[in-house]
């Protein structure tokens, strides 16, 4: 692995960790969403970095897939968030905790 690639991968790991911690500690659903996006994009960064190192396109194709899925997820997720907010007047994920025994 070249130094350049390892710098990208390190950055990707840092971003992923920030995203993961954000998902775990933040209550606001919007922020959680943003953190999820951050994690996805951290993955994309790693994929693209490896693709470049290997000199082929497979990693980049995978990154495109991730973007498509992330876009779809945002559409569905935001719609759910809107509905929850309308019924509960709250965007906190902890307030939506009824699905349990």
């Amino acid at each position, binding site marked *: 692995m070249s130094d350049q690639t390892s710098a990208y991968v390190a950055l990707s790991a840092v971003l992923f960790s920030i995203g*993961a911690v954000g*998902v*775990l*500690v933040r*209550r606001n659903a919007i922020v*959680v969403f943003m953190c999820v996006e951050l994690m996805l994009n951290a993955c994309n960064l790693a994929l693209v970095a490896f693709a470049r190192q290997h000199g082929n396109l497979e990693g980049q194709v995978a990154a495109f897939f991730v973007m498509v899925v992330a876009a779809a997820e945002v559409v569905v997720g935001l719609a759910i968030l809107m509905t929850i907010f309308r019924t509960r007047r709250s965007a906190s*994920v*902890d307030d*939506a*905790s*009824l*699905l*349990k*025994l």
Partner: protein
Amino acid sequence: MIHLSEAPIPVVAPGSADGAFALLWLVIALPLAGAAVLLLLGRRADAWGHLLGTATAVGSFVVSLVLFVSLLGRDEGERQVAQHLWQWISVGRLDVGLDLLYDPLSALFLLLITGVGSLIHVYSIGYMSHDPRRRRFFAYLNLFVAAMLVLVLAENYLVLFLGWEGVGLASYLLIGFWQHKHSAAAAAKKAFVINRVGDIGLSLGIALMFVTFGSTSFTVISALASGASQATLTTLGVLLLLGACGKSAQVPLQAWLLDAMEGPTPVSALIHAATMVTAGVYLVCRSNFVFERAPDAQTVVVVVATVTLLWGAAIGCAKDDIKKALAGSTMSQIGYMMLGAGLGVAGYAFAIFHLITHGFFKANMFLGAGSVMHGTDDDVDMRHYGALRGAMPVTFLTFAMGYLAIIGFPGFSGFWSKDKIIETALADSWVVGLCALLGAGVTGFYMTRLMLMTFLGEQRWRPGVHPHESPRVMTGPLVALAALSVLGGVLLAGDWIVDWLAPVVGTAPEEHPPIPALAVTAIAVLVVAAGVALAWRLVGQRPIPDVAPTQVSALTRAARADLYGDAINEALVIGPGRRLVRGVVVADDRAVDGVLTGGPGLVGGIGLLLRRVQNGYVRSYAASVLGGSVVVLVALLVVNLA
């Protein structure tokens, strides 16, 4: 103390039932059909049910009479007839036919059961005339008679057992006939349960016969019994005795008899005179081929009988309830019969003789007591009677005949039969003979007390009670039974009954008793006279308090409480039984259920713990996903590096 007889023990070897004997089945079928018709037709038979019930009993008596006359006409060696009705059970080696045996012994029982039974049926027409369930009562009476007839006509122990259980069922139905009374229902249950205890003995005995002889037929067993081991025969004898104790209310299974007085009075007469309690004596006499070869079992019979005859006499002395006093006396008299039967070949015939005379006079007195109750608004307390002889002359006179017979007044039937048993007992053992003598004296005491309190002395009638004589339909049977009580002794004329029964129970070797028979008779009469005189002094010459005095001796208190028979049962059987059941319930709840419910309980508990994980917080789910991923990653790293 009891010796094996030198004379051969008779073997049951019946001929085929031809001629008049082909009617044998009819004796049972008549009352059985009566019971079936009355029970199945229900209320439609209400109007004439009692007449049909009586007619079947009388019909059965007529057939018995015809059979008896036919049997009289035969030679002594040919007086055993068997009728095969149908194959009952046929499994492997087990082969049981529904066979009937008619011999001198069953002939006498047939006459007693159907004869006295018929009189009791006639009497019940009057006694139960106001009862709305009279038809049902007659159906049960018919069933009782039919079951008892099966019992005495059986040719093998299994058919005998069929009748035995039938008698138990019918007695249960009749004792609890007034089932709306709690006491009657409880008494019926008690009689039924205690009888089951005896039945265990009989059924075990039958099982032992199957194992030992491969059959339960009297014919087979009487032929093979000599080949069986002493231990087997003794065990068999004791088991049969246990059965006999249950049915015949012998100590220790006596407690049901006094409670059985809850039934209508004709039932008491039927149970105490013609059926039920005589079954045990019949069983012992019928099984003479077992008992004759098992002297130890005979000794047990004698001991049980002696204890019972004193036990019953003691109870009879203390009771104020006229029916219970008579019940105590029955227990005592059955003790005499058992004693006769236990004395072996010398006593069987006298046991049966006493059974027959007792059947006459006890039925007479029970029906007389029923007549007294009928006239005094169903009061049973003798302290409320007194001077009834003027109001009920027929009842008084007939009862007096029964009284003279039971105490053994010279010339009356009971005198001949009881005297013979005492004589035989004295010849056998001093102790037993003296106990029997003492019992005779006590009999004189309590029966005189009963007579004095009921018919003589001063009027102690409750206000509003106007004693009156019973209708003819009730006094008729009383007169007939009184005549039989007086004349029953003729059966002994020329030792007829002894010779008659010889083909069944054997002939006693000629013996020279230590005391001449006349002396024994004189002593017995003196002892009875002493008892009567004592009663006259203690009861006849003093005013009778309205309430039983409480300042009495310990013996009187014990006798009033049936000599603590119930308390003994409670302490020895019921209490431990209850504790055992409770222990079993606890063991079942804790141990068995614990194993069964423990597994599911454990799983449920773990589930309860695990469900806490499902808290609904998205962030905690996310944390577990992350944690899981980290664990997988670390695991992969460790594996790859290793």
